[in-house]
């Protein structure tokens, strides 16, 4: 279960080879990233001066794991006009973000590489290779991916599984087929959200969370400014549940993207699982 097949997808290999070939021919000189996850991978993999601008989300300490590094870059807000005026020869974007802007930029003749969200741990290493290749540094992407895979293999848990639930504003949770679900099972947990029958993300009513009595509850840090969506995280029933359960203090920013920072999140969960074995 821990041995992830590397490059199992022949199409992906072909695509990587193509990218690598193109990159050797002409590495992009002005790269603009407009997605939180490509921001972070590009900051880690680009040459100094090669990355011209990153998205404003990279400065949000609750979503971005690299706020300090991000301060060195000019910020864009994802609008096609702003990005076009930066005169990029490569734009990095997510597949879900600002579709209209991406279409417009492509129409203007700019090359756009779109990265889908990482839904599985296998995607993470593939994304590192993909962005490395797109930036003209396939060897850096490959090294980062190999390091990630090696660290991942060392973090697996064997033995009986404990129960855990991810719980976010509005009662949102991660079901089966999500990166969070895979991290939970890797680190020795059964995901309450998946066992409740949820696929992908979805709403788990507070009542059902309480009835499932998870041993670990992972919640997010509230944003500044009040919202009723986040009030559920301070509900007395959830508080009592968490008093009885073990706590896992994770940084949301580490969970959001498939970057090396994801290992921090996985380590936290592995530690939480090990803690349960010590004090059952």
């Amino acid at each position, binding site marked *: 279960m821990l041995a992830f097949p590397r490059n199992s997808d022949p199409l992906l290999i072909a695509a990587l080879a193509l990218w690598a070939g193109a990159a050797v021919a002409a590495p992009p000189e002005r790269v603009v990233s407009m997605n939180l996850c490509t921001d972070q991978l590009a900051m880690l993999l680009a040459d100094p001066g090669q990355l011209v601008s990153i998205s404003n989300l990279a400065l949000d300490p609750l979503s971005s794991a690299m706020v300090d590094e991000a301060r060195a870059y000019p910020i864009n807000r994802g609008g096609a006009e702003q990005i076009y005026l930066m005169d990029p020869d490569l734009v990095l974007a997510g597949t879900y973000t600002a579709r209209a802007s991406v279409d417009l930029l492509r129409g203007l003749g700019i090359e756009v590489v779109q990265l889908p969200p990482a839904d599985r741990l296998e995607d993470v290493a593939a994304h590192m290779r993909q962005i490395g290749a797109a930036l003209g540094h396939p060897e850096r992407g490959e090294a980062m991916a190999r390091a990630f895979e090696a660290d991942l293999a060392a973090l697996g848990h064997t033995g009986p599984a404990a129960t855990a639930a991810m719980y976010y504003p509005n009662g949102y949770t991660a079901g089966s087929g999500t990166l969070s679900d895979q991290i939970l099972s890797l680190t020795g947990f059964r995901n309450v959200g998946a066992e409740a029958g949820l696929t992908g993300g979805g*709403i788990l*009513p507070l009542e059902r969370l*309480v009835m499932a009595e998870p041993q670990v509850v992972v919640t997010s840090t509230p*944003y500044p400014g009040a*919202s009723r*969506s*986040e009030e559920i995280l301070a509900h*007395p*029933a959830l508080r*009592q549940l968490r008093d009885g359960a073990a706590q896992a203090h994770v940084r949301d920013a580490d969970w959001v993207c498939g970057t090396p920072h994801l290992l921090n999140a996985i380590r936290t969960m592995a530690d939480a699982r090990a803690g349960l074995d010590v004090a059952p």
Partner: protein
Amino acid sequence: MTLRITALVLLSLLVALLFLASLLIGPAALGLKQSIGALLSGEGGPVALVMQEIRLPRALLGLLVGAVLGLSGAAMQGFLRNPLAEPGLVGVSSSAALGAVLSLQTGLAASFALALPLSALAGAALAVLLVLFMAGPHGGALALILAGIAISALAGALTSLVLNLSPNPFAVMEIVYWMMGSLADRSMTHVWLALPFMILGCGLLLATGRGLDALTLGEDAARSMGVDLARLRLLIVLGTASAVGASVAVAGAVGFVGLVMPHLLRPLVGGRPSHLLPLAALGGAAMVLAADIAVRLIAPDQDLKLGVLTALVGAPFFLHLLWRMRGVEA
């Protein structure tokens, strides 16, 4: 007389049944004996937690919110002698929502516990004063409704503006909640926060009964019977603001309850406001409890808003009233 007593008994019975149903219906499938036992004893681990901390506050708030809305509607209709007056329609609820949102977003609500209901109360009071001023002692239904539309639109727009400007990415998604109302995931904290203001408001509104009775004969007749109209107005303003403000602060703005219930029940009491007030409170409680049960049965995992269901019943009813009044007004 006997019809009124019968109606009081039957409505109380209905409210009690709906309250029980509200306790027993939820996404977690719990047995009847098990859940009632856990509710009363507090033993039974997660079942007790679900019953005491999640379902009990929800049922209590449904009862309270419905009662104050029905009561406020009946009192406003009696005072304005206008069947279209209702906290939701004339903008009192949306102004209370604006007050609540302002105190939440400025951080005032976090600084001391009562700031949230007090701000909602202030918003509601401003709107009641404005409506009374605009509709005036001799203002017709048209003036009242138009003033209400203007106040609702303004308060709604300002609420959206404040939520849009919030640094919290979830705040903007809550515009619907403040305009439609919901009882999902409320806790006993919310009950304790709203209860004192609701009791105060209900007390003030129930005290208007005799004055409202006299007012049905006209202002001059009421005055000659020794009714202090200024005092009556003050009771209506403070009572409505306190009751509706507290209700909106914890459950959002639920519309049409105060419109429908007084109308349905008025024939049972011969149009006598003092007798209508307690009936309208019971009717409102039954309507909101039923709507909140329906919300959970129709879309258990979706947090369908309460106001959607009350509007489905209330809006056609409102149109029907307008249709009937057409001849009278023109």
